[in-house]
């Protein structure tokens, strides 16, 4: 079997591609929609919006999430905002500029046509969310307020205090629960997808585990949508929620879906530093803080232990303002993160272990007063104080980069379909829009674009093409052999996990894996570090399968078993990530290969790597086959990114 990588991008000028696609994609008659069953896995911005929207259109929808209610999906944790090319500020924004900024911010490793469509629908997202009652920040006149974010010189970010993700998700959740109330969506909470079922080359359903009873269940549908988020937790420590996992997309990969650019991970520059080995997660401080906070370290290594108030301005190095005068503290995430690491590697880091830099609000407080700073960032400051025990109105925050988002994901064509017909992938779980680096406030935009405005066209097109007479005859039987075979495999895997004969916790192995990845495939990677990681991962994986233990039962509520299944997949997936990073002999965006740099900046190799790398499963992880989708830049000229 070989992957068929046809991106199905419509022809014509970029501004007209989406309009053309909307006309050319087939439609399903309104009366026939209810005859089609669609499964949506994940209830975040992408999945929840897709489930609600498809149900509004009339499809028969089933939605699954592992959380106890769809309102808890990790989209909720996004703080800063959502971009849209509204140009309400009259500061020179446009759809083309948002498109341009996103392609450039992604270091020319995203598909132009998808990004342009994202910029086009961004404006509709804000309208829809406002109509649904999302309490966006307002100006005194009642119009919507905006703020700036990294990687942009216009003010296009809409926000709801420091809880934008929460408010957008609650909007999605309200639309979803409305359809649940109408009986149009059947919701399966505390239910985890453990495999996808393929019959005659098409995705026909999923196998799940009911997390309360432990029951393994088969669900058939005409199409399956995965909106299961990213895989940052492969690093153990990340800003993601503890439950975030790669299982759904990795299982799809093992069933034949191509996995694109797994090595493209984003390190967020402003997180609270690690405080001890008991640490279970890292907490992000919104990038919006960089609008008013100034990032600095002491100029000399001897000052690092001094109280910050005792270090005068001339002894401080505001290194982002120094290195990138035009973007300054608002440089893109990958650049700001690496710059922080450089300062710390140089011995000028502050706080425990010298792994921290200051984010200082002294000047903003002096300029605008504490009250205004509190109004803008109050909840973030409170959160910082609760976690660290330090008051950021008096002392500068200590921050350090942490794994935050994954740009890689299942390969999808222009219609968000994976290489498996009938299997679609939305939001962070796919690879398409952010290239090698995502700009701030663009994740919420992509999740909602995919879920509200794009996938409904794609699903209609696919279903209309299934057969001339819609409905039951295309629906696979959940008791057929395709499902029973997968069910047997799923149960076998769970039994194997339950019978690991060791005595150590699953977490202890996950931590070890995370450490290996952070060193080998983290903020900076080299041939040597990646080869080391590729050697160590199978060793630890082998020990995991020998020395771990999963207590409790298979057929009951068992959080250890849930964790073990996810970590087992991470052990395989981690190898794929390192392999992808090893082959990509260039630096781009978040993928920084130390061998490929000019004056500390990423050096791309467009001759050899201007493509998405798409991995095909071929038995063992080490045998995965690399395919490429060449990326063509017709509208944004390939150029070295400069934020100086």
């Amino acid at each position, binding site marked *: 079997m070989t992957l068929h990588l046809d991106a199905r991008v419509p022809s014509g000028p970029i501004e007209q591609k989406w309009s053309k696609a909307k006309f050319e994609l087939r439609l399903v008659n309104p009366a026939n929609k209810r005859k089609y069953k669609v499964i949506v896995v994940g209830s975040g911005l992408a999945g929840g919006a897709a489930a609600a929207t498809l149900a509004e259109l009339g499809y028969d929808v089933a939605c699954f999430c592992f959380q106890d209610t769809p309102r808890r999906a990790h989209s909720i944790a996004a703080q800063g905002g959502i971009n849209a090319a509204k140009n309400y500020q009259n500061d020179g924004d446009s759809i083309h500029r948002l498109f341009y900024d996103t392609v450039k911010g992604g270091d020319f490793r995203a598909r132009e046509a998808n990004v342009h469509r994202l910029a086009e629908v961004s404006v509709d997202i804000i309208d829809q969310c406002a109509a649904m009652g999302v309490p966006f*920040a307002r100006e005194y006149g009642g119009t919507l307020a905006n703020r700036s974010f990294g990687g942009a010189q216009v003010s296009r970010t809409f926000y709801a205090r420091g809880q934008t993700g929460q408010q957008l998700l609650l909007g999605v959740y309200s639309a979803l629960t409305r359809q649940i109330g109408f009986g149009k969506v059947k919701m399966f909470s505390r239910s985890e997808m453990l495999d996808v079922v393929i019959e005659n080359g098409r995705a026909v359903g999923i196998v799940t585990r009911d997390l309360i009873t432990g029951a393994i269940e088969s669900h058939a549908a005409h199409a399956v949508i995965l909106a299961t988020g990213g895989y940052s937790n492969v690093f153990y420590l990340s800003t993601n929620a503890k439950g975030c996992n790669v299982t759904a997309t990795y299982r799809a990969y093992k069933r034949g879906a191509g996995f694109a650019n797994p090595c493209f991970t984003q390190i967020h520059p402003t997180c609270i530093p690690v405080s001890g080995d008991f640490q279970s997660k890292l907490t992000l401080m919104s990038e919006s803080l960089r609008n008013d906070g100034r990032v600095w370290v002491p100029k000399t290594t001897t000052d690092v232990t001094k109280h910050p108030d005792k270090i005068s301005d001339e002894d401080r190095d505001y290194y982002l303002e120094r290195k990138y005068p035009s973007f300054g503290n608002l440089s893109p995430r990958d650049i700001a993160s690496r710059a922080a690491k450089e300062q710390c590697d140089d011995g000028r880091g502050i706080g425990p272990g010298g792994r921290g830099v200051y984010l200082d609000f002294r000047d903003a407080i002096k300029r605008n007063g504490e009250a205004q700073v509190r109004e803008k960032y109050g909840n973030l400051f409170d959160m910082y104080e609760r976690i660290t025990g330090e008051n950021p109105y008096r002392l500068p925050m200590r921050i350090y980069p942490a794994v935050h988002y994954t740009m890689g994901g299942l390969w999808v064509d222009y219609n968000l379909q994976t290489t498996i017909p009938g299997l679609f992938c939305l939001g962070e779980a796919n690879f398409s829009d952010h290239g090698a680096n995502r700009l701030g406030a663009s994740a919420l935009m992509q999740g909602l674009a995919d879920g509200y405005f794009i996938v409904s066209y794609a699903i209609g097109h696919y279903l209309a093409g299934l057969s001339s007479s819609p409905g039951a005859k295309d629906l696979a039987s959940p008791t057929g052999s395709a499902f029973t075979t997968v069910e047997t495999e799923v149960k076998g895997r769970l039994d194997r996990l339950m019978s690991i004969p060791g005595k150590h916790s699953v977490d202890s192995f996950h931590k070890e894996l995370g450490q290996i990845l952070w060193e080998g495939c983290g903020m900076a990677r080299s041939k040597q570090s990646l080869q080391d990681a590729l050697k160590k991962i199978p060793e630890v994986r082998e020990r995991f399968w020998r020395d771990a233990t999963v207590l409790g039962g298979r057929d009951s509520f068992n959080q250890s078993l849930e964790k073990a299944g996810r970590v087992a997949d991470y052990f395989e997936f981690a190898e794929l990530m390192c392999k992808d990073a090893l082959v990509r002999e260039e630096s781009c965006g978040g993928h920084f290969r130390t061998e490929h740099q000019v004056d500390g900046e990423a050096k791309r190799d467009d001759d050899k790597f201007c493509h998405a790398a798409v991995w095909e499963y071929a038995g063992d992880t080490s045998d995965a086959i690399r395919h490429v989708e060449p990326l063509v830049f017709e509208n944004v000229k390939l150029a070295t990114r400069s934020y100086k």
Partner: protein
Amino acid sequence: MSERMLSLTLHVWRQPDARSTGKLVTYKLKDVSTHASFLEMLDILNEQLIEQAEEPVAFDHDCREGICGTCSLMINGRAHGGQKATTTCQLHMRLFNDGDEIWIEPWRASAFPVIKDLCVDRTAFDRVISAGGYISSNCGSAPDANDLLVPKASADLAMDAAACIGCGACVAACPNGSAMLFVAAKLAHLHHLPQGQPERLYRTQAMVTAMDAAGFGNCSNHYECEAACPKDISRDVIAMLNRDYAKSAFCYREPSTKGEGSG
């Protein structure tokens, strides 16, 4: 802040499943850093239990940054531990002293049955929201966002109420197991905004009816909910609910078609 190490005695509620009876089990824990969060302290306990081949304590948690609303716990009888405006996951061990005894129990409310140990079933909240906690606006039908002006003060009040994370602390803290603060917060969020006005009376009726049907108790103005709320939601929202509910009892008329607006 400097780090201290704590030795603790924990009394943890253990209950194998919904049908079994549970009991408090005592565990000793040593060398817990004051920098650890409360849930990290429970992680340390679970590591210790696993090494002794004892089944770890089940507890709900996810984002661990105070926003997803998954974590719960009655800690020494207080929902989320009693630190003002703080979820359990944001509670840190620096608030405890060496030698402390800590009692850890699940939410106690008949509408939130225990699933296992410290995990409870809060799907009753979803049922209340699906009865009316939304603005009926199908995707694609929205006017330009700036066509509808929202006074800043209204947007701010809506946001104050919308900050609810649906954790259930208000119910757990209430002597009657009432969900009034939760339901009223959702109503206040939508009713402070012009977008929420067309369905205001219907929504109030529908959600209050669903709240009663889900088995939540009545509000008798103890305001324990407000004290326990990790998002500082004011009891003022309850007054707003009561006013709207009284009004809707007189003024609300059923729409002529059931399911109107469902598209």
